[in-house]
């Protein structure tokens, strides 16, 4: 029978299935410091051990400082953050888990380093106590976030209790315009289906515009599947996937490589496969996107305006929008390109890979941030991304343009470390969530692509990167 990619991946991992509830086997478990301490503690209390320690790769990313790290973990100024990072180090040592510690050159955001190391491979089931685990679906993997109880469950049993998701195919056909990125595609999809549009579904992104994306772009897109409500997003394996995976430290080598590639080539939806739902977008219609409100679905094109209440679909949305206007300090019908900003953040598991930094640097090159910009941060996704960018001179372009060049981590995407917005500050951010307080209590977040963030930094307000020079 014809199968979707999701069905192939799910079926290949079923240990046992009864009355619609399945036990599925997990190939790769990524771990960070925030959602794992209680899981390790649970194992300890129940006197359980790890089922397969080699399946786990751990890294501290949420709490780590992005400034000077020469004093090591002891130099983390917030004692509670320090304890959380130390706890991860101790747990990994106790349980024999591979960890890239804070000052390891390979350290970085968990969703950047997994693929970078080849620890994420096509056909895998990948989990992490982090909702943006959907990122790894870019490789034709079944990847999603789990809670801490499930982290403990996977540690102890190598399995997860799951129900099958419905399948949603998001088709994006045609060619993206110059200056329009995977981030804009992601936001345009969320704008169309809403943040609950994917609830209960696994999304497969398909169509010529998706096939035309690099792996970095595909990761950006799958990363934001969760912002559309879908735990998992995925893209079929093709040459782009296989070329990216080849010769990575954890990738298969020699004869295993050929066997793996032969299997990976089967990881696509069959032509006759049936999806539970299909949504289509025309790539040429997608503009650079800017969110105006406090949910990723509150988004318009750069040419657009903050929508007025009469455009709301019902009373609940109307109330939502009214609260968003007040929180964001914006009025209905304000032109997006008239919105001035205070800070800029280029980074996060959505947009901190080398291609993102190259794109932002290309915009910033030879220019300077506007006088009203208090802080413009560039936070690479990993130590290896940082090193690569430095070898290409991108750091110098950013520094000359007035940006700060930082150490890798989650940083101001969620402001668990010292990088944050103050109340009332407005930020152009390449991250994934514009929720109230996400980047700091009272902070106002506008989600954009790296190019759009860089252009906003130079102009001091949002501008259309397609015509900006």
């Amino acid at each position, binding site marked *: 029978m014809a199968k979707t990619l999701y069905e192939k991946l799910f079926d290949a991992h079923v*240990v*046992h299935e009864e*009355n619609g*509830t399945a*036990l599925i*086997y997990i190939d790769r478990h990524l771990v960070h410091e*925030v*959602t794992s*301490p*209680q899981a390790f*503690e649970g194992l300890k209390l*129940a006197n*359980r051990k790890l*089922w*397969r320690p080699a399946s786990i790769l751990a890294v501290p990313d*949420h*709490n780590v400082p992005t400034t000077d790290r020469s004093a090591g973990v002891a130099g983390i100024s917030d004692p509670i953050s320090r*304890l*959380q990072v130390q706890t991860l180090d101790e747990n990994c040592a106790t349980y024999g888990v591979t960890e890239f510690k804070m000052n390891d050159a390979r350290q970085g955001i968990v969703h950047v380093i997994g693929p970078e190391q080849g620890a994420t*491979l096509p*056909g*895998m089931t990948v989990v992490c*106590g*982090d*909702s943006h685990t959907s990122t790894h679906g870019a490789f034709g993997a079944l990847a999603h*976030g*789990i*809670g*801490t*109880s*499930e982290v403990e*469950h996977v540690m*102890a*049993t*190598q*399995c997860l*209790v799951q129900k099958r998701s419905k399948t949603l195919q998001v088709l994006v056909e045609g060619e993206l315009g110059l200056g329009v990125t995977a981030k804009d595609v992601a936001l345009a999809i969320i704008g169309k289906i809403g943040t*609950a549009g994917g*609830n*209960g579904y696994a999304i497969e992104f398909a169509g010529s515009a998706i096939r035309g994306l690099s792996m970095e772009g595909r990761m950006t897109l799958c990363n934001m599947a969760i912002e559309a*409500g879908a735990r998992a997003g995925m893209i079929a394996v093709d040459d782009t996937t296989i070329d990216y995976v080849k010769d990575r430290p*954890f990738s*298969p080598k020699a004869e*295993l*490589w050929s*066997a*793996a590639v032969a*299997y990976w080539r089967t990881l696509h939806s069959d032509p006759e496969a049936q999806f539970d739902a299909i949504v289509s977008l025309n790539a040429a219609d997608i503009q650079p996107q800017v969110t105006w409100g406090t*949910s990723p679905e509150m988004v318009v094109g750069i040419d657009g305006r903050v929508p007025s209440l009469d455009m709301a679909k019902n009373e*609940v949305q109307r109330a*939502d929008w009214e609260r968003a206007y007040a929180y964001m300090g914006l009025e209905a019908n304000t032109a997006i390109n008239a919105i001035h900003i205070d800070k800029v953040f280029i980074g996060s598991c959505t947009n901190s890979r080398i291609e993102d930094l190259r794109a932002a640097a290309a915009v910033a090159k030879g220019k300077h941030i506007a006088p009203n910009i208090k802080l413009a941060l560039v936070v690479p996704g990993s130590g290896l991304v940082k090193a690569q960018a430095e070898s290409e001179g991108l750091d110098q372009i950013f520094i000359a343009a007035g940006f700060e060049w930082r150490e890798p981590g989650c940083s101001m995407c*969620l*402001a*668990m470390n010292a990088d944050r917005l103050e109340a009332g500050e407005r930020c152009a951010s390449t991250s994934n*969530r514009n*929720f*109230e*307080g*996400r980047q700091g*209590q009272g902070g106002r977040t506008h989600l954009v692509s790296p190019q759009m963030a860089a252009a906003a930094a130079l102009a001091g307000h949002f501008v259309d990167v397609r015509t900006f020079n």
Partner: protein
Amino acid sequence: MQAFKQINGLVVPLDRANVDTDAIIPKQFLKSIKRAGFGPNAFDEWRYLDHGEPGMDNSQRKINPDFVLNQSRYQGASVLLTRENFGCGSSREHAPWALEDYGFKVVIAPSYADIFYNNCFKNGMLPIILSPSIVDTLFAQVGASVGYQLNVNLEAQTVTTPGGEVYAFEVDAFRKHCLINGLDDIGLTMQQQDKIKLFEQKHQLAQPWLFK
């Protein structure tokens, strides 16, 4: 895990859609390495007028009198009534931990984000889905009647209003079984370890590169 069968609970109405887990428990409290004690910081940014940080004495903080959880008529609530897509965003299980620690046993909404929904069951909390029109009705009734309580019966899968209206809800049979009996998921899965080992051997033969 605590077993859940039936409760009569005071209801608090949180009339917002798309309440995200960052709002339920802000990030600064995620630095804790413990599982308990998040209740005083549930909805921290809405509940208090100052900025909350871990370690603060919450009893000394200025509360926001406009926030519904702070109103005297809703003190002691154990049923949270809210709108669509509750618990969206981050997968942090600290969100159900915070709600449970606050005293909630049941959430009622037209829909939930998937990860949050799943996390609730792991913590002895029941997320109930009722249709938007029934949720509308309940919002109207709660607002109109101080001390409004709902009876939630998991075994019968019903929500009963003080006026005697009975609303049925769906729940997955396995999750219901675990919740009613307070069963530990890991213990149940460990009973299948022979099957897991057998699967692992087959999987390793088929895809040996996964085990390098």
